[in-house]
């Protein structure tokens, strides 16, 4: 297990007890998100579908790289990695 910092974006902080970041132990992006959501069901519901997929309106970066361009939720993490949850910003 590696210690990972997960950055919570402002629109999702109300569902994370106001936290801007959370530390978890995980080996993949998916695992890190599930750990973050373990006691925060409303937060997890906004990040992942009930089927365990990343929601389309949410991007997750490992450092500078979008996990969608890596191995998605299976992207491996190393000790000290920073995972940023980034909301899609769009409209009309």
């Amino acid at each position, binding site marked *: 297990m590696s210690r990972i910092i997960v950055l919570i*974006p402002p629109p999702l902080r109300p569902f994370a007890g106001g936290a*801007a970041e959370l530390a978890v132990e995980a080996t993949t992006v998916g695992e890190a998100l599930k750990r973050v959501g373990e006691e925060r069901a409303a937060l997890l519901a*906004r990040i992942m579908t009930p089927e365990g997929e990343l*929601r389309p309106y949410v991007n997750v970066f490992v450092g500078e790289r979008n996990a969608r361009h890596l191995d998605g939720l299976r992207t491996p993490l190393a000790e000290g990695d920073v995972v940023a949850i*980034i909301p*899609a*910003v*769009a*409209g009309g």
Partner: protein
Amino acid sequence: MNADRFPGPARARAGKAPARLTIRLPRALRDSIVAHCLAQQPLEGCGLLLGERHGRAAHIHEALPAPNVLASPHRYEIAPETVLAADRAARASSRTLLGAWHSHPRGAAVPSATDRAEAWPDWCYLIVGLAAPQAPELRAWRVLGEDFVEDGLEIT
């Protein structure tokens, strides 16, 4: 409203009197937002807001223009890499990514159906209405419960 994105808590607040914020926007930033949107005509212009929120007031300190990756007169989208960079800049300066701004090139400064479908709850959305480009209209909105409410906008 995208029910997928607003399960539970957002709906639970519906029915309560909306707690409106006062958005404080320096005149120079207001002018730069409008100038950027006019320069993008007939496409939608957009950007991100950095600042601080204390109680019922939000203070905008930066209005970062961002490319509209859709280059559309009807829609806007900011690349996630741009949002990531803004979030990092905000964190590095002890500020918060408070929201976003965009224009309606031929419309009023009120949320569209697309805005409703894609908005995040309790985030600040400034809309520039350019139906009359010589008299741009700027209004502030935020999703509370199931719809947008208009916040107060104070140009400082």
